[in-house]
């Protein structure tokens, strides 16, 4: 479960990017976080992970977000970054996937079992010993998801998971996201992908909630989307 209770945050420049934000995400829910550039989507993610601290109260993975709970919250929360090169910092996919389980005290054998299981589930066995810098964009994104799944997180946060992917890989990522049973919060401008993967959408505007509701309802509201520098998803505009 994720809960924001009257959370505000300002960067050092003094500009408040999150203002009195409150929302709740139930366990197992898939929620899309949308909004124009600078609306505060990435900041919400960083606040949830304790990479930034603001005012108000945040409950993440059922725990109150403070310095004492931070290691446990981070252990239970996987974050898929927009740029997979930033996420995949070890030389090979295998090393990257082993990184978190080993850091969290698993033995090498246990961690390896988990890595193999995740690779099999995502049909990525062929990439196991590949060098990260040699992977294609789509492979890198899939491998990044695999590294996070190897942590067995309760909640998965994704920042633009389909950015810079070709249509085939985009479809593949959507399929994989739909196959994940965890609580998901997905920040993206790809509204078609949000429609395909999320049952609920939160629309942010200047750090506040402009809309929160069923994905189909929010994403069908042309006037609301246009007022927030967004457009109707292609699949809805055709209907």
């Amino acid at each position, binding site marked *: 479960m994720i809960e924001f209770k009257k959370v505000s945050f300002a960067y050092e420049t003094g500009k408040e990017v999150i203002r009195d934000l409150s929302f709740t995400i139930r366990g197992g829910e898939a929620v899309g976080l949308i909004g124009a550039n600078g609306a505060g989507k990435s900041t919400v993610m960083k606040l949830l992970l304790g990479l930034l601290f603001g005012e108000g109260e945040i409950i993440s993975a059922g725990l109150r977000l403070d310095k004492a709970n931070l290691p446990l919250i981070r252990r239970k929360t996987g974050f898929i970054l927009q740029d997979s*090169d930033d996420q995949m910092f070890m030389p090979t996919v295998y090393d990257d996937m082993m990184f978190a389980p080993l850091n969290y005290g698993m033995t090498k054998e246990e961690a390896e079992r988990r890595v193999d299981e995740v690779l099999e589930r995502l049909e990525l066995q062929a990439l196991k010993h590949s060098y990260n810098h040699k992977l294609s964009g789509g492979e890198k994104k899939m491998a990044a998801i695999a*590294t996070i799944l190897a942590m067995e997180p309760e909640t998965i946060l994704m920042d633009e998971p389909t950015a810079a992917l070709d249509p085939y890989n985009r479809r593949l990522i959507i399929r994989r996201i739909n196959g994940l049973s965890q609580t998901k919060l997905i920040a993206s401008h790809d509204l078609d992908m949000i429609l395909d993967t999320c049952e609920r959408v939160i629309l942010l505007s200047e750090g506040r909630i402009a809309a929160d509701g069923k994905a189909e309802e929010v994403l069908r509201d042309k006037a609301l989307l246009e007022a927030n520098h967004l457009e109707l998803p292609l699949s809805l505009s055709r209907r």
Partner: protein
Amino acid sequence: MNKMEKALAELGTMDELSARKSSIHSLHAGAKLLVTVAYIVIVMSFHKYDLSGLIPMLLWPVLLFQISGIPVRTCFYKLRIVLPLVMAVGLFNPFFDREIILRVGSLSVSGGVISMLTLMLKGVLCLMASFLLVATTPFDRICAALRAVHFPKTLVTLLLLTYRYVGVLTRELAVMTEAYHLRAPGQKGIHISAWGSFLGQLLLRSMDRAQEIYAAMLLRGYDREFRYAAERRFAMKDVAYTLIGVSLFLLLRFVNVSGLLGSLFVR
């Protein structure tokens, strides 16, 4: 292919070499690291005039090239930038040390020439040994081995991340260079007036990336210690390799093999 792409391709070649299969590749990285360090230390310990004693040390890299299947040509191609520097180290010795210490027929050879050749050979041997280590061992395993022998963790982490991100940085540099040339057609290189902003941009990009990477590491339980997964335990073959290697180096160092061989023929 521009210079940056070539550099990236070369980086890829090293990965391909280290991913090959041979009995040398399959050895524990720690064993290879220990033997390489022992080799370098012993090569460096030869006296500056002991050229004939040093020559048999060539045996080891030749053996490794043969067994691992790494082409010698690739080694010298990769080392083409460093080799001239190594060669230049002893270049002035013949001018300072003119004492004649060897006569070959009517030809007098000064100590300076011998010490120059010895220094050059030492440099080449050490470079070959280092190249063979990197070409037969994946980089993460070398890092794991370095940590196992208590090499400072900050340095090892730096090495590992540099290796991982040198390609990404080169690609960014390639994109920036291309963007520059598209707006400065016909210009050779980058004009000096743009160097500052060019490097500044690269630095800012690198800093942004570094922050993201650090966040990604923290979010996956990083506590200032990399836990390497790649290495197995030391096996008998690793112990045997280490013992054979170090014993051979000591033998070549303390027994005058060249002299012995020479005396066989002279008799």
